[in-house]
């Protein structure tokens, strides 16, 4: 009872507007997003940010819940290793999310749907770049049907 739409179906889906949920750590990436704003660097409105104190606050549950609720891509952004406001948080993020990412790939979720990256408070440019990049890739992949709850409407 597979739910994957064939490639052809996905491509046909006109006006596909991906939804990307981005978890951003308060100190670096959220500030980086603020800087992108202050610098008026455009990125698409499809990306919606949830503020967390540290990337290590992001639970695998949150990622999967976003996918269940129809997110087409999920991003976790934190301080660069070594820059964590809480000293060690992103080192744990690195291990946890490396494993989660591989696990998702292992059950056949497209690699590009789940992005983790380090974006510092000064990298407004990088923030916009990463967002644009993920969006472009997700756009190409089409809507997430694999992890989405079939009862959820968006």
């Amino acid at each position, binding site marked *: *009872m*597979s*739910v*994957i739409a064939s490639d052809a179906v996905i491509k046909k889906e006109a006006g596909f507007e991906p939804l990307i949920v981005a978890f951003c750590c308060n100190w670096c990436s959220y500030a980086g997003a603020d800087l992108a704003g202050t610098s008026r660097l455009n990125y698409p409105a499809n990306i919606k940010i949830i503020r967390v104190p540290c990337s290590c606050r992001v639970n*695998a*549950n949150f990622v*999967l*819940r976003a*996918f*269940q609720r129809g997110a087409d891509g999920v991003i976790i952004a934190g301080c660069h*290793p*070594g820059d964590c406001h809480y000293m*060690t948080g992103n*080192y*744990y993020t*690195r*291990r*946890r*999310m*490396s*494993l*989660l*990412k*591989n*696990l*998702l*790939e*292992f*059950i*056949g*979720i*497209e*690699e590009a749907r789940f*992005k*983790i*990256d*380090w974006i510092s408070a000064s990298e407004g440019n990088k923030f916009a770049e990463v967002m644009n990049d993920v969006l472009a890739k997700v756009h190409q992949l089409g809507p997430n049907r*694999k*992890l*989405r*709850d*079939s*009862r959820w409407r968006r």
Partner: protein
Amino acid sequence: MEKIREEIKEIVRQALASKEVDLILAWEKGQLWYDSYPAFFTEEQGVDSLVWDQFCVNNLSKYLLDDGMAGQKVGILVKGCDTLAFNQLVQDNRIIRDNVVLYGLPCSGMIDPAKVRREGLDRGLIKIKKTGDQLIFVNKEQQIKVLPTQVYYDKCLTCHYPNPVIYDRLIGEKVANETLATHAGRFSAVEELEELSTKDRFAYWDQQFSKCIRCLACRNICPACSCEQCTFDDSELEILGKAKENSEDKFFHLIRAYHVAGRCVDCGECSRVCPQGIPLEKLNRKLIKDINELYGEYQAGLDPSIKGPLVTYQLEDTDTFTAGERGRKQK
């Protein structure tokens, strides 16, 4: 094995008689040939029904969490894989080591009744004998010689700890670590899946997960799933509903596997008990394999004093998501 069984019974009787322990966790024989199930012995007299045969597959260490045992000294019979689980429970602070007496039992493998049935060896079965490298299935008409690899549980074929890694008393001779040769193949099934395309991998797992009836046996048997209250049972958070829904099945299995990452001792009990034959061990082993490759070889339950891979880090750790830092990439 019979000889050792008698030795075990004697030791258990003595331990109970001398009040060295208040209770002993062991196995008992049921109505059918393969039916050796967990049993709790508190009285010397009851020990007659204790059994030690090639069907004592159940890992008993999780019963040590039973709050009815609070304040008691408990004895437990443990195989190699069981001791890894025991250690993991000690590491997770679920067991106080000193309250438990471990009777270690070297084990060369347990027989999978399903394989016996599939081979048609169960018809009129009277008993199973072990001689050297072979098993002899005795029925009314004949004796059939069988190689252990034909009937042992899959998990036993890739077992790498046939002898207890921790015990207070060892019963019987240690067995040679002969299965190590196949241990190399521990990750071969994972690798096969990794070789597939994303689409095919999804098709595979989608089909597997859709079989799930969410009976939670895999979770409840797991020695690493030892929480007071599982997050899935948190009625306030309700991260998992009860509907039989594809995305919820996936959520359950991903989080179950992820929550035991770094603590899964690879005992294979989850796959064994799954009534639908979902190969859950492949998820666990994928995580073990990644941990080993990314953060160094780690065997959960081997040494409780070593911090698990997810509660520690190295400054120079690699990751699987930034450019140039990808760990082993799948197709």
